[in-house]
């Protein structure tokens, strides 16, 4: 009997977590460069029931990890000359005070000194590993598809696009940034495709999220019902067996 309760509880916990992730996806439906996430669930095969007379093997459910959908978000035209979006793989490299960080959010601007910066004001790194500096007083800036930043026919630098062998090693730290472990295999994309005047929008698919949310809440109520029935059953058993005579 207790097994039923424990299994139900383990599922409830996982469902709550799935709900948290769905809620985060939906909250970030307007976040530039956001990548949707999904909980990956598996049966937990190794945990045995504690009851002496219970079955030998019980399957609990447990979360196994989280999958991130790195598919391309749609490009949205903004009309700002320093907005750039990557088509295809790769990340912009941002030099934050905590070290290099990666992002798909290409809403760049120029600070008072002419340095190309991310939305949070940290410098965007060029291919040579140095920030890109633009002359604030010299004409419009053109960014070519390969990331080259041009001004008045002169090349001011080339925006670095970092690719990872395995994007699963990236972890999110908020503010649209990712970190990678130091030993992650990474390389500079040789032929990146960058679009000027566009921003990559969030790749959250609202209909899918709402559907999975419904699925989660239905599953949750059915587990709850199961728990209730288990409880009912044990109450009845106690009542009946405990009746004298």
């Amino acid at each position, binding site marked *: 009997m207790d097994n039923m309760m424990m299994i139900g509880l383990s599922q409830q916990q996982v469902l*709550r977590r799935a709900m948290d992730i769905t*809620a985060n996806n939906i*909250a*970030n439906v307007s976040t530039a460069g956001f990548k949707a996430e999904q909980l990956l669930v598996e049966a937990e095969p190794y945990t045995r029931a504690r009851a002496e007379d219970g079955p030998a093997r019980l399957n609990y459910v447990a979360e196994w990890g*989280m999958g991130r959908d790195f598919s391309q978000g749609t490009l949205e035209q903004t009309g700002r000359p320093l907005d750039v979006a990557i088509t295809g793989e790769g990340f912009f490299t941002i030099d934050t005070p905590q070290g290099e960080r990666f992002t798909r*959010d290409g809403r760049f601007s120029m600070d008072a000194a002419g340095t190309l910066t991310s*939305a949070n004001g940290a410098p965007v790194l060029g291919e040579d590993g140095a920030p890109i500096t633009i002359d604030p007083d010299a004409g419009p800036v053109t960014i070519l598809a390969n990331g080259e930043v041009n001004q008045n026919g002169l090349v001011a630098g080339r925006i670095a696009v970092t690719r990872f062998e395995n994007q699963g090693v990236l972890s*999110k730290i908020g503010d649209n940034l990712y970190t990678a472990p130091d030993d992650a295999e990474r390389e500079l994309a040789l032929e990146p495709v960058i679009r000027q005047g566009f921003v990559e929008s969030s790749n959250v698919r609202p209909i899918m999220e709402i559907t999975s949310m419904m699925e*989660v809440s239905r599953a949750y109520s059915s587990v709850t019902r199961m728990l209730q029935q288990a409880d009912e059953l044990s109450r009845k058993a106690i009542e009946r067996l405990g009746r004298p005579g």
Partner: protein
Amino acid sequence: MRALSTAATGMEAQQLNVEVIAHNLANMNTTAFKRQRAEFQDLLYQNLGQVGAASSDAGTIVPTGLQIGLGVQAGSVYRITEQGSLSQTNNELDLAISGRGYFRIELPNGGEAYTRAGSFSRSPEGQLVTSDGYLVMPGIAIPEEARRVEVNQQGQVQVQLDGDAEAQILGQLELITFANEAGLEAAGDNLYLETAASGAANVGVPGQPGFGIIRQGFVETSNVDAVTEITALIRAQRAYEMNARVISAADEMLAASANLR
């Protein structure tokens, strides 16, 4: 339950989005208004399973971590400084800037502000002033007997006086540019103020490289595009509704548990 507060951050963000859109739409007919856009960033993440943690004694490694995001926050509301279209007024003191730059205005408190709204007038003393009566710098005094004021594309102000055969030069208008225009602080009344983010004011003459030219008899219209804004409004509203759905679903889950006994 995290989902409740996560969805609440989503609703708050979309509310801000709608506020920005409303402000743009309200200023659809404001001279030289620059539209704004709210941009969002994901909030903190809670690490429940670290990426790269060992999953067994044999050295296998968890391929993906388990991170749960806590929602969204407004990153910034930035101004899109795209040129607005020029609309002809035939008023001789309406000056539009085609290209980069701002007019410099002297505020009554002695400070300086910058504007692209060039619908100027003449003060009782004959000075060139904004529609609020603030002096356009450098001060240009138009004599009473002036027949017509001419401003050329390079900002030179000339005037034809009654009885004079030749035009008389009254002065030279200046334009101001900033390294980061989007960093200017909007002060209302079509005025902007210099900030640390915008960089220092850079004075120049219209037509010089990096500066726009002056068009007399035109005003710059607002760069708000009604269709874009309405589309954004619909999207914001739907996103708001979805976040509200998450709250009610999460609430139902909590209620189901609460009713257990």
